[in-house]
Every structure is written in structure tokens, then in C-alpha cells.
């Protein structure tokens, strides 16, 4: 989930060549399908997350079973674990995108914002 740029082929061997690292590099090349969203509550799985933590969501990715995804449910966005559903199952929540990274604020144990 936190794996950084691996195997991206570019004429410039290292996108950060000659300059200081910025966090963008860790997300891989910019993509028009990347959105940032904010967690509205607290989660304990797959990692401990709190309200306001930033989800990096890739709408171009096709989710694999068990991946953390954002779905549209009841007119809202919700975090979910992806399970394949038959295409004709209209009651299944609509996929928004795959969560690729989380920018989480580390909080003291036992107390979350």
C-alpha cells in the first residue's frame, strides 16, 4: 500500500534528479485519474485512520478482490473492501476508485481526533 514508484519508465531516469525529494514522487507520475478525498470517520482496518486523513484514490485502476476502494452508496462516498459482483447486480454500490495511498496523521495511542 505504501510502495513507491517502481518500474516507471521515463527518459529522465529519476524524476527527482537534481532536486530535493517531494512527497509527490512517492505517489508515482501524476495522473488525471487521481483524486484526493478525506476520511470522515475513524477506521481500524486495514490500518488505524482518523477523520481528515487523506485518501489517494485512483479512478483508472481496476480493483482486485480485497483491495480498499471508495464506492458510491446512498448518495455518499464510503470506504469498502472490493468484492467482485456480477455486472447485472444493480444493487451493488458503484465503484468510484481504488485507494492507493493514505496520508495519515499519526496520533497518540488511545486518542484520536
Amino acid at each position, binding site marked *: 500500500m505504501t510502495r513507491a514508484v517502481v518500474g516507471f519508465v521515463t527518459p529522465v531516469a529519476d524524476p527527482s534528479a537534481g532536486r530535493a525529494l517531494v512527497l509527490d514522487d512517492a505517489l508515482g507520475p501524476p495522473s488525471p485519474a487521481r483524486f484526493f478525498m478525506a476520511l470522515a470517520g475513524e477506521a481500524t482496518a486495514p490500518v488505524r485512520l482518523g477523520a481528515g486523513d487523506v485518501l489517494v484514490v485512483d479512478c483508472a485502476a481496476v480493483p*482486485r478482490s480485497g483491495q480498499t476502494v471508495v464506492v458510491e452508496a446512498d*448518495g455518499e462516498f464510503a470506504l469498502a473492501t472490493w468484492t467482485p459482483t456480477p455486472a447485472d447486480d444493480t444493487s451493488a454500490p458503484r465503484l468510484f476508485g481504488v485507494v*492507493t495511498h493514505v496520508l495519515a496523521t499519526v496520533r497518540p495511542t488511545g486518542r484520536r481526533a
Partner: protein
Amino acid sequence: MTREQVGVRARLDLAEVGDSGGGERAPGGHPDAAWKWSRRSGHGHHRRTNEAWAADDTALPVATGVTHRLSRPRPDVRRAPPAAPMSRRVFALVDASQFYVSCERVFRPDLDGRPVVVLSNNDGCVVARSEEVRARGVRNGVPWFQVRDLLPGAVPFSSNYPLYADFSRRVMETLATVSPDVELYSIDEAFVALPADTPAALAAWADAVHDRVRQWTRIPVRVGVAPTKTLAKVASEVARARGLAGHRATAVLAGTAGAAADALAAMPVTDVWGVGPRLGARLRAAGVTTAAGLAAMPDPSVRRLLGVVGLRTALELRGVSCLPLTRAPAARRSLTRSRSFGRRVARRDEMAEALATHAADACRALRREGLAARALQIFFHTPRHGAGPHHAASRALAFSAPTNRTPDVTALARRLLADAWPGDGRFGFGKAGVLLLDLVPADAVPRDLFLPERTATDALLAAVDRINARFTGRGTGRTRPVVRFASEGTPRGTTTESGHAWAMRQRQRSPGYTTDWRALPPVRLAPPA
């Protein structure tokens, strides 16, 4: 069909087109080159080749399988024989209908199927409406207070140009992954050139582009493919009808003789791209009411009646491409001025100068055509193929009132640049430009009661335009205007802010979902199952 299958199929189709792309480019020195922002490809590192996608399995799980599949020929598409060279090209118009409404809906899934309108500055008029609103007979441009009672339950939004500009950029960058030849025509329309192919192959390509833009950017688009840009506009209308009928909003009017015949027979001639009310009236007087009628007119008659521009339109309707990718007919909804730099620009004062020059150019064109803009977008980026580091930036904001006054536009451009500038010396930028959005007739702009000093500005600008018209252009040996604004050429000059009331009434403005860290769309945790 599952999403996975669709994704793989789309990737296949797009990869093939991308591989065979190419062709000539409009010469940079051509006067028309600066008019439209022609994008050969995505912004530098923004562009991902299919190979790059495939290698990056973190971001795109599906890609690993694709490299494998790419090496296999597709059994279902018969390639054109070698005798038909790939230099024959067709055009696709990718057009986001109700674009502003679609942008507002991306992060508001609760608005699916509900009537939505987007209002102009100061929440005055309807500038975009959802299909539900259109179906009730509400037209764009009507004052909101006149129709709000007709639309119970309608959700109004103030225009959120930064949001729309961001989604426009996303759509354009997505298109740059399917073809190296993309022309941004307006904030919600782009022409894409691609090699000619069988109707079945083009239809598969159009479907794949439709699905990719929808999936990646969440913006629904129509895709119309045809041998000419004017016919691509017609195809786009056919695609709209297909979309309304519940099909995928794509249409191909290419590949066979007479492919467009039915569509042209059904289309009023005034709906043809480039035929405005004025030419339409002349055609009606001559007994021509449909697009097919115009296409069938003998060349000399067209030329006599409509001039060379009309003849070009008639030829385009017959499938003879006369408008290359960087050129558009006169009726415009946005206006771009951009140019590549002679050398890399790394300092903000130089960038400000370049943007001010483009802004002044664009404003002159607006005044000449009697138009005013509601919003401004600036953009600049490093060369795509040069050495890194790469960077691309764009910012957009609305004016407090539609304007074609150079000081208004340069001031806003400077403000946007201050926000977008990454710091001196960090990047060597290769190109910059301004995009004036949502053009309206200047005489429709209400007079500004609270800023009387602007009357003097207008008189000054009119005088400057007259001087420049007399001493610049044909026969004068000069191409650059003789009277320019100091901001265009004084690197460190600090012009005073003109004290604009930037804060406008925007009661219903949506959050900056993609432009403000404090306004990210919320994701709740699903209740435990």
C-alpha cells in the same frame, strides 16, 4: 461485461491507435498556431505511455496482463490493406455535455438524476443546466430568479471555475493518453485526430475513449468520429441522441460513402458548425434549410452566397477535410493565446511578462470581435520531451464581471501566477498561455455602476486599439502592436492593483474539492456488515 474486461479492451484499442499516431504539425510560426492550444501530447511527465502504465503495476493492477495481451494481434478487427496509407486521418470530437453540471455532480452522488443548474457570476443567469432542467424547457442564459419557481427541487450552484478548469485538464490529459494529437477547442470540447480505420474499429475506439474518460475523470462525454471536424460536430449530435436514448453516447460517421447522409438530412443548416444566424438567413432565403442541402449546393453558388468560409464548410460536410487540427471557425466560446518560449523561462517576472503579453493579445481579439470573457485560465509547462525536471501548472478564476479590458485580465493573470508559481529557478518552462473562458457578447454585459472610472479605461483602450490598428499589421511592416501595456515589457515594474472587488456573490458555490486541501470530498466508513 465486467469492468475488468472493459478496461482491458479499452487499453487494447487505445494502444493500437497510439502506436500508429503521428503526422504533421502546424508550423509554430503560423499565425493560427497561437490561437488554439494544440496539444501534441500530455504535459511532460503527466503523460503516461501504455508501456509506462504497464510497468507501473502499483497504480494499475490490470496493466500486467495487458502487456501480455498487447503482443497478440486482435482477431476481430480487419486492418486496412497496406495500400490504404495510415496518413488518412479522421477526427473525433470529444464533448462533455452539461460539463459544469457534470463537474458539480462528481463529488455529489446524491445529485444523480436531480435537476441541477449552474449560475453565472453573482448568481445571475443559468449558464449550465442538467438534462432534467433542459427537458423542462429552461434555456441557458435566462435569469435564475425568473425560472427558479418553475424548478422546485432544483439544486443551484454558483460557478466554480477552478473546479471546472481542473476537470477540463483531467479530461484533456486523459485524451492525451489515447492520441498524440489533441486540440483543446473549449473548456469542455476537444478534437482528437486519429488514423482512419474501418467503421467497426473506429466505433470500438470511440467506445473505449468514452469509457476511459468516464472512468478516469468521472465526466460523461460524447464521442463523434468523422472524416472532417465539421462532420465530427454532426457525429457528436448523433452521439447526443444515442446517449439520451440510453445507449453509449458515441457515433461514427466515417468509413463508408454516405455514412453521414441521414444525419445531414435531419440537421437544420443553422446547427452546422460555422453557420451562424447570419449565414443561416442567407441560406434560408436561397431555399436551403438542412445540412444536406448545403452539402449538395454547387461550389460556385456556395461561394457566391457564403464566401470562401462557407465553401469550406460545404466541403467539410462532403467529407473533404479543410480545417486542420489547430484551426476553428469563428464562433467561439473560448479564446487561447499561447506560445512556446525561445528559451527556457525560470523566473516569475519573465513569466508574468509572457502572460501579460498573451493577455493583451487575447483582449485585443476579444474587443475586435465584440466579446467579453467570464473567466480566465493561465497555464505554463516545461517542454514535454526536454530534460527534466518537469512541471505543469494551470489556474483559473472568474472575473467579477465579464470583461475584455486588458488591465482586468493582466491583473487576474498576475494573481493566478502568484498562486501557481513554484519558485524561481526550479523549472525551465517552455510554454505559457492564457485561456479566456465563457465568452459572451460585450454589449450584453451590464454597465458597471460602481466603477465609473472604467469608462475612462474603455476610452483609453479604444484609443490604443485604434492606434495599433493603424500602425500594425498588413502593410505597416510591424506585427507587434506599437502601444503596449507596461506589464507586457517591464520585468520588475510593479503596477498598482486596480482595487477590483474580487469577492463576488457566490452563495451557492461548491467547495474546492480538487483545489483546496480543506475541502476534500468526504468518505465515510461503511457501517460494519
